[in-house]
């Protein structure tokens, strides 16, 4: 199986405190991997390291076999973060303009839109059922609609892997359900690799084939079907903790 991401002996610290220490991780094509862990356990930090937005203190991250700091083929990677909605709501851009910009690398000498890109943009918008909104200004849409636009933007470059950092925080449950169904379809039908952080245990339990727990600066790997959800849920409810104690086994 093709390795999408490979992490070797990665450590990262803010100031003096290590957030992650000697991490090893391989994400393979077609995986649906969920990161679980309490707040502050370094889930978002790990994703940012995988995307090269943060530089590791030591160790290396390879994306599609290339060290992330030299990686340039960003169209193969999609990313939706929890900060995605923190944009200037009065930015005067239409949905179509924002999605077109994502195709920068596919544009010709002049970085302008052209008729060749139009079908791709429409396909991406149709995927999230937003085709009728392409000329609307981004700030005039509801939170759920904006979220769908950002998914369309991620999908327009036809990525092979998408990273989702709790993208549905603050969106109503109906929109969340639609979103997770879509992600599931992308993974099952199109074979797109999915890496996500989520506190939604139902999503993790029904969709992820691999679960990675972040505890005490380290990763613990589980296969999706081996992960003890009942123990996890009991812990969440009983002790009011996000990640309860549970057994960890290292899976090759």
């Amino acid at each position, binding site marked *: 199986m093709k390795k999408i991401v490979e992490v070797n002996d990665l450590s990262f610290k803010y100031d003096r405190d290590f957030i992650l220490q000697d991490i090893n991780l391989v994400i393979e094509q077609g995986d649906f991997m969920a990161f679980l862990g309490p707040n502050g356990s370094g889930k978002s930090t790990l994703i940012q390291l995988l995307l090269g937005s943060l530089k590791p203190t030591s160790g290396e991250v390879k994306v599609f076999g290339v060290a992330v700091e030299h990686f340039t083929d960003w169209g193969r990677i999609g990313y939706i973060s929890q900060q995605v909605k923190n*944009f200037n709501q009065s*930015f*005067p851009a*239409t949905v179509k*303009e924002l999605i077109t*910009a994502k195709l*920068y690398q596919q544009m010709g000498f*002049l970085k302008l839109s052209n008729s060749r890109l139009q079908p791709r943009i429409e396909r991406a918008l149709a995927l999230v059922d937003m085709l009728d909104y392409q*000329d609307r*200004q981004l700030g005039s849409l509801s939170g759920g609609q904006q979220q769908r636009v950002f998914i369309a933007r991620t999908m327009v470059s036809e990525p092979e892997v998408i990273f989702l950092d709790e993208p549905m925080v603050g969106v109503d449950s109906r929109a969340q359900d639609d979103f997770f169904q879509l992600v599931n379809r992308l993974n099952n039908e199109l074979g797109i690799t999915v890496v996500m952080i989520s506190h939604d245990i139902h999503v993790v339990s029904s969709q992820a084939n691999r679960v990675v727990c972040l505890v005490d600066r380290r990763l613990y790997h589980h296969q999706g079907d081996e992960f003890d959800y009942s123990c996890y849920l009991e812990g969440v409810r009983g002790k009011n903790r996000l990640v309860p104690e549970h057994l960890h086994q290292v899976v090759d």
Partner: protein
Amino acid sequence: MSEMLTYSFMQRAFIVGNVIAVIAPLIGVFLIMKRLALIGNTISHVALAGVALGMILGIYPVYMALLISVIAALGIERMRKSYQDYAELSLSIILATGLGMATILISLAPNSAGIMSYLFGSITLVTRQDLSIVIPLGIIIILVVFKYYYGLFYLSFNEEDARLSGIPVRFLNIVFILIISLTIALSMRIIGGLLIASLISIPVATALQLARSFKGTIIYSIFFAVVSVNSGLTFSFYYDLAPGGTIIITGVAILVLVIGLQKLKGYRKQPDFS
């Protein structure tokens, strides 16, 4: 009107004015969306130091302004990195340095009266030499914006998103700040160093009242700048006013008018509950 255009200095003023009216708001839209409108002010004050230096050294002041503002622009881009969370602070530091240097150099310059035309703009002093530099550089700036249009667009939306879309963020930031400094140095002759930042921002502010897209914002901004410059130059000719100030006040008047009309439109749209 036709009488005004029989004067060759007015022809030159209109040509230079219209080139500036296109490029200043064109880059202004990206600059304001990046929330870095202060860069315009900063570079123009540094460019004044360049003008004064040119006068002392006997070098054509616009060339010196170009050189100094490009150096300042690169300095700003570097400092913006070191003071990421205090972008305004780095700009204020460079603005202060530029203005400090400018006042010292002006006091040393042999013909300090001449500098007035660079502070407030002048229509009678636009030379053939100005034309030969403003037209080609203006065209280059427009072409650069077209070449990197969606890259610059994404950069003003969100730098991190832009990076993750494969946009060469660092390179484009440098290209962008270079075209800002060129635009400012070119505009000093006719608009004046103290006022050019306004021509970068006011037409954009007006456009934002009406536009529903990024492209629309650019088109409206250029339209309002062209109207301001042409009517400003005309008023300035007939009433013997400083061109820079007249252009800017015309721009402000259009802004106020558009805001007023928008408010009226909104007021009319309100449902009648009586």
